[in-house]
């Protein structure tokens, strides 16, 4: 199972999906497009633990975190 974690005021919302399941994969890709489309940043970790920004949907990513647009505080 892979997980998409979306930060919000409750801490986060988690969406799990099976990358082998075509409909779940399509739903996850749709969620990715919707979130990044409204300004969320997507990030994942490499096998070595390095943090990377994800510009397009990666069906192999085990865990993707989304956070809202950054602004000057």
């Amino acid at each position, binding site marked *: 199972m892979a997980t998409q974690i979306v*930060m919000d005021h409750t*801490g986060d919302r988690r969406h799990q999906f099976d990358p082998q399941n075509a409909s779940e994969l399509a739903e996850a890709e749709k969620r990715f497009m919707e979130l990044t489309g409204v300004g969320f940043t997507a*990030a994942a970790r490499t096998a070595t633990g390095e943090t990377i920004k994800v510009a397009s949907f990666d069906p192999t990513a085990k865990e993707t975190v989304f*956070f809202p*647009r950054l602004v000057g505080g």
Partner: protein
Amino acid sequence: MGFLLRIWRGSPDPPRFRAVRQLYRIVNIINSPEARGRGLLRRWLSERQLAQFDAFNFFDVIGCQTAKRYRIYYATAANVEELDKGGHPLMRYCFVPTGNLVPGDVMLAQKIALETDELAALELANKFQPSPQRLA
């Protein structure tokens, strides 16, 4: 709360009720937004950052483009400092994700931003002199 009072009135065993209440309180704390944010942050920190965070409630990150060192404190605003080679604060930055996020989430977003797109994050940040209490 009404549910708990009904149990209390019907309970022949107050110690058991107290244990249930304690358990209820612990579950609430574990599932609070702040605890969830903290848990997510801890999972995404490197081993070194995690040790630092557990000890001091802050951690350091290295900017991906300038290799400068930044310290991220447990807070939701004006909580990022640029450090010099001696570990002294040079500048304080405020950049946060929108949406009233909890401190752990804010810190994770700041870490990701500095480690993947440092200059873009600093460009939109408001800049301040470091706070006196952190200068020592």
